Structures are given as structure tokens and as C-alpha cells.
């Protein structure tokens, strides 16, 4: 039940793109085409989940016991950067086809604030799950949260890429061309997602 609540809330209610505003830059950058959007979503999903597990453990077993919470930001970003590099190298060796699909997006992910954002959120924010008192997530919940959040990222991204492909064929006033109309469309989409806030 708790896990279901985390999943629904992370995918729909608190969608990372449409209500938390994380990872907007790559979202606007690669949502031109459905195929790139899908590739990016896959890569983000992979890295967010992995990075969250690693940073969660580092925070719990290295930073907290030694009173080094103030090094959180710097430690997390370095871990994420290193992790992305490792994933890239490993993927290239083990699964060239997957590397082909995700490879070009990997370097972009280091500076995707969604990754750092989720990593920091799970170790600092207290969640209230189904009326229980708000508390920090444990490792299992954190992993599920990270996975669900990145699935939410993927869903929003792919939906929007579909919309944007249609948008490209339409006549749009000069000043609205490109980003402005895209932003307004996302706004309307975000409004639709607001409707989910009643369910949790």
C-alpha cells in the first residue's frame, strides 16, 4: 500500500517535470522528436534510479556518521558525474545496442537537475504516506520513489513529444514559434495533471 502510494504520487500527483520543475532543460531540448524523447527517458530512468541508490547509501553510511552533511551537494554531484561515466563505459562494453540507443544522452545527464534533485529529495524531505507521520524514506522506498519519479519523467516527456510533433505541422504566429508555444502547451498539460492531486 505504501509503495503504491509512493508510485502514484511520484508519477502523477507530484510529477517531477510538471509540478516539481526538475529536468526542464533536457525536456525542452530533446522533446522535438518522439524517438529522442524515448531514448532520453530511458537513460534518465536508469541513471536516476542508480544514482539515488548510491547517494542514499553514501549519505547514510559516510556523510551522516561523520557529521559531514554540509558536503552533501558536492559529494552527490561528484558521485553522479562519476557514475554517469562508469555507466557509459560499462554499457559500451556489455551492450553496444543499448549504448547506441542511450549513449548520446548520457553525458547530458550529469547536468540534468532531476538526477541531483531526486538524490537530495530522498535524503532530506520527509514524506507523509497515507496519514502516517511524515518520515524519511528507507532504502526500499527511496528506490521505488526514484524509479517511479523517473517513470513519471518519461511519461510526461513522451506525451509532450507526441504533442510537439503535431504542433510542428501547424501554423503558429511568428513570435510564438519554438519555445513560447511549447511552454504554453506544457502549461496546459500541467493543468491537466493538477487534476490528479485529488487522488492521494
Amino acid at each position, binding site marked *: 500500500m505504501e509503495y503504491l502510494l509512493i508510485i502514484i504520487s511520484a508519477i502523477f500527483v507530484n510529477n517531477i517535470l510538471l509540478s516539481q*520543475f526538475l529536468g526542464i532543460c533536457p525536456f525542452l531540448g530533446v522533446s522535438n522528436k518522439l524517438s529522442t524523447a524515448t531514448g532520453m527517458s530511458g537513460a534518465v530512468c536508469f541513471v536516476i534510479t542508480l544514482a539515488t541508490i548510491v547517494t542514499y547509501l553514501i549519505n547514510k553510511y559516510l556523510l551522516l556518521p561523520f557529521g559531514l552533511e554540509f558536503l552533501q551537494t*558536492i559529494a552527490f554531484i561528484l558521485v553522479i558525474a562519476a557514475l554517469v561515466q562508469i555507466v557509459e563505459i560499462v554499457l559500451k562494453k556489455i551492450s553496444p545496442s543499448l549504448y547506441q540507443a542511450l549513449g548520446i544522452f548520457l553525458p547530458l545527464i550529469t547536468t540534468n537537475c532531476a538526477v541531483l534533485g531526486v538524490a537530495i529529495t530522498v535524503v532530506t524531505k520527509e514524506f507523509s504516506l497515507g496519514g502516517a507521520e511524515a518520515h524519511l524514506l528507507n532504502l526500499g522506498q527511496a528506490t521505488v520513489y526514484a524509479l517511479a519519479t523517473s517513470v513519471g519523467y518519461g511519461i510526461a516527456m513522451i506525451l509532450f513529444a507526441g504533442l510537439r510533433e503535431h504542433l510542428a505541422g501547424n501554423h503558429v504566429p511568428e513570435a510564438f514559434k519554438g519555445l513560447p508555444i511549447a511552454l504554453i502547451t506544457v502549461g496546459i498539460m500541467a493543468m491537466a495533471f493538477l487534476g490528479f492531486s485529488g487522488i492521494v
Partner: protein
Amino acid sequence: MSKWSLVTKGFVKDNPTFVLVLGMCPTLATTTSAINGLEMGLATLFVLVLSNIAISALAPLVPDKVHIPVYIVVIATFVTVLQLVMQAYAPGAYATLGLFIPLIVVNCIVLGRAEAFANKNTVVDSALDGLGIGLGFTLSLTVIGLVREILGSGSAFGFKFIPGDGMLAFVMAPGAFIVLGYLMVLFNKYLKKK
């Protein structure tokens, strides 16, 4: 480029929000009111100026292969300094901006300026560049925050002048996207290089 134009270019010509379209996450997330936008802008300005100075000074000494990790470490250091200073002297603002203070590390404006400007210019020019872009960012965020605050809460900089609740949607997520979209339209139409 004269020193003065380095500082003023951030307002219109190289405006980080409307022309370069960088740092969208804090732009959308923290502009629920003019004050919040202003505070976020100033926080970014602080990191931008310091990291630009440090990176332009370090750049000649850093081998090319490791320059990105070095820049990230430098930026993360200044962000942490900012976090500590804000907790000590501006705890209110630190609580409101929350997650988006540590996320300045991955704000593409900061790394972008380091790569595009600071690593090949003098310390003074880099500092001015950081100041200019930072001020432009602050201005954009304040304007977006102001528009959302007027429409959504009927107040400006915390002073309420329209009674009632306002249009809540503008304070919430959809309003952020829509206001930014329309402001970008106005910017394209009237301010972009003629």
C-alpha cells in the same frame, strides 16, 4: 567589448532566460512571488560571480582533460558556501527556496558561463560577465515572479492591492509555464534585436 556592455548585456541582448534559455528549473519553480524570484536570482548571481572569478584564475593551470570535473568541484564548493551562509544569515529565504539552492550546481547558466566565457578571459572580465548575466537572470526571475504574484495572489512584492484569492493557477505549476511562455512572446516581439 567594453566593460560596461559586459554588465548590461544580460538584460536584453544575452538575457539568460529569454534569449539563452538556460536555468529553466529555478526560473519556473521559484517564481511564485516577486520576492522569491529576486532571492533566487541573487543566490545564483553570488555563485556565478565567484565561480567565474575562480575558474578564470584556475583555467590556465588545469589540464584540458579534467577541466569539467574541476569546474564542477569549484561550483559545488561555492554553492555549499552559499548554503551555509544563507542558513546562518537568511534562514527564511533558505527555507523557501529549499531544494533549488543546492541545485544551482547543475544550473546550466553557471557551467555554461564557465565554459563559454570564464576559461578564456581575464579575471576582471569574467567577474563582470558573471555580474551581468546574474543581474539579467535576477531581473527576469523578478519580472516573472511579479506577474505570477499579481495574477495569482493579487499582490506585488508582498503588498496586497487586489482583495480576494486571485487566480490560483498562476501561483501553481501551470501558471509558471504559461506566464514564461507569454513573456517570451512579448520579449521576442518587442525587445529582441531589431
